[in-house]
């Protein structure tokens, strides 16, 4: 992807060709439904204004990458989408985050219901200190699925979905902590898939993994895109370029630019975006 972009900048024809592609994609995008429509969203940690007037329209069945330097608020934003950010007691918010048309910041919105629909994969793999099977079955179980046969099916399907079935099928009863970091992260993804969410939030899911595991997770994200909407926070700009359809660039708590990934990485509108992706800061 990066190589392709270098070629594009060197070759006029390519640029013209690809900009027509961009136009086509943008048209497609407007046809898609919004999963998360954020309007004038503000967030404070105590007195620190961490997110300022965020407006973002995230579409379904796409991979949306959120990039930006450390402390820019990208993790805070993604954690606001499933209200995990509320675990920090001093957080205050205003504005709207509409998930499928309903404002999740509404006090009547049940947070457990939201998190059942919006799954999350964390930066550091965090399997439960249980067997692989119990890790995957945990979600379905707390939501009332007790039937052993159905659970078996869910576990297999989720592990296959997370491309780890073949590696663990013979040791489903062993503790998940016996697996490597990359395997643990795919277990966490499988755990998330087990309740068949609508959206998967990924908070720097590969930052603790080696390159090969990273590649596996990235391939997985591409496959999951057909059935899920994925929002991924990443430090790694190449990763954003490789796997995402849309990219949002955050800086100091603001969205500087949000557009098709190809556009952001080839012809960004804002100078700050260009400075960041060309490695001049951050």
């Amino acid at each position, binding site marked *: 992807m990066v190589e392709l972009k270098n070629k594009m900048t060197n070759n006029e024809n390519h640029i013209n060709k690809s900009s027509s592609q961009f136009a086509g994609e943008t048209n497609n995008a407007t046809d898609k439904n919004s999963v998360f429509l954020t309007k004038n969203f503000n967030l404070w940690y105590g007195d620190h204004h961490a997110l300022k007037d965020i407006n973002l329209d995230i579409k379904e069945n796409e991979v949306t990458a959120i990039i930006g330097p450390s402390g820019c608020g990208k993790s805070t934003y993604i954690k606001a989408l*499933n209200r*995990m950010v509320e*675990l920090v*007691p001093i957080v205050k918010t205003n504005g709207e985050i509409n998930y499928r048309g309903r404002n999740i910041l509404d006090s009547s919105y049940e947070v*457990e*219901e*939201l*998190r*059942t629909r919006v*799954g*999350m994969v*964390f930066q*550091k793999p*965090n*399997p*439960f*200190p*249980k067997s692989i099977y119990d890790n995957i079955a*945990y*979600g379905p*179980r*707390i*939501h009332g699925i007790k039937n052993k046969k159905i659970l078996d099916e869910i576990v297999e399907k989720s592990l296959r979905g997370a491309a780890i079935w073949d590696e663990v099928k013979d040791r489903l009863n062993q*503790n998940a*902590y016996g697996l490597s970091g990359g395997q643990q992260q795919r277990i*966490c993804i499988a*755990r*998330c898939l087990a*309740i068949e969410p609508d959206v998967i939030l990924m908070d720097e899911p590969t930052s603790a993994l080696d390159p090969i595991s990273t590649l596996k997770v990235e391939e997985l994200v591409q496959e999951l895109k057909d059935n899920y909407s994925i929002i991924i926070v990443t430090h790694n700009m190449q990763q954003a370029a490789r796997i995402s359809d849309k990219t949002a660039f955050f800086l100091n708590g603001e969205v500087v630019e949000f557009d098709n990934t190809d556009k952001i990485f080839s012809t960004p509108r804002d100078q700050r975006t260009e400075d960041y992706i060309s490695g001049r800061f951050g």
Partner: protein
Amino acid sequence: MASQGLGREHSVQDLIAKSRDKKGKRFVEKLMPIVLVTIALISVLTTVGILFTLIFETFEFFQRVSITDYLFGTEWLPFSGSEPLFGVLPLVLGTLKIAVIAACVAVPLGIAAAIYLSEYATDKTRRIIKPVLEVLAGVPTIVYGFFALTFVTPMLQELIPSLKIFNALSPGIVVGIMILPMIASLSEDAMSSVPNSIREGALALGATKLEVSLKVVLPAALSGIIASVVLAVSRAIGETMIVSLAGGATPTFDLNVTGSIQTMTAYIVQVSSGDAGYGTTIYYSIYAVGFTLFIFTLIMNLLAQYISKRFREEY
């Protein structure tokens, strides 16, 4: 080079070299391990000494009373003039009654308190409640004993009219209250050390706080919790003053908890504070009972260690 810019005559390295040359420092360095080993040995040797005395006197006791009569006898009548009976089972049973009642009180309450403190309480609440719990652990047991005898027993007698003034129930409950802070505090430590990332993983799946506490945190901290329970029960077994004051002095071999009992510890108190002459069988019997008690608490402590190692869930 090193002194450059410091504006001093000596470089830091020179100063270090100078102080290193002092003889005293080296001597202290060499002496300290010897001093420390000596101090450590004092406590080890004391323990060995106590154990040795215990074994020696117990051996003497078994010269006079057959070991099978002691271990399997169901009647403990050491003071019955011509033919004293030394069957330890009534004392063991009395001790177990106290331990079981105490555990029934302390385990649910202690774990509930630990869940509240670790999962629900705000920092502020925790900062107030934990010290209060620890004060409870610092109350002298004699005070608990009077509390059992003069407050809990009369209260229970309102509910259970057949309850004797000396009984197993009241001191059992009070021993439970005594070991509760220990279970609560140690279990809270075990639960607090479960990493937050695991809680977040469960919350992100739509789990409620209770589901996270009971199905993720509690199992993850189980080894620590069980170890705390075993340690606390071993304290209940060794508890003396409460049962001496409120439990009575009637070794009985039945499962009744409303009547007077005698525990191993209470028997030792009874004999030690009485006038059993040196060299009598009764005198030696307290060593045998003490040794039995020691075996019990030793097993409990080893069990606690084994459990916390064996069932430690890695995270």
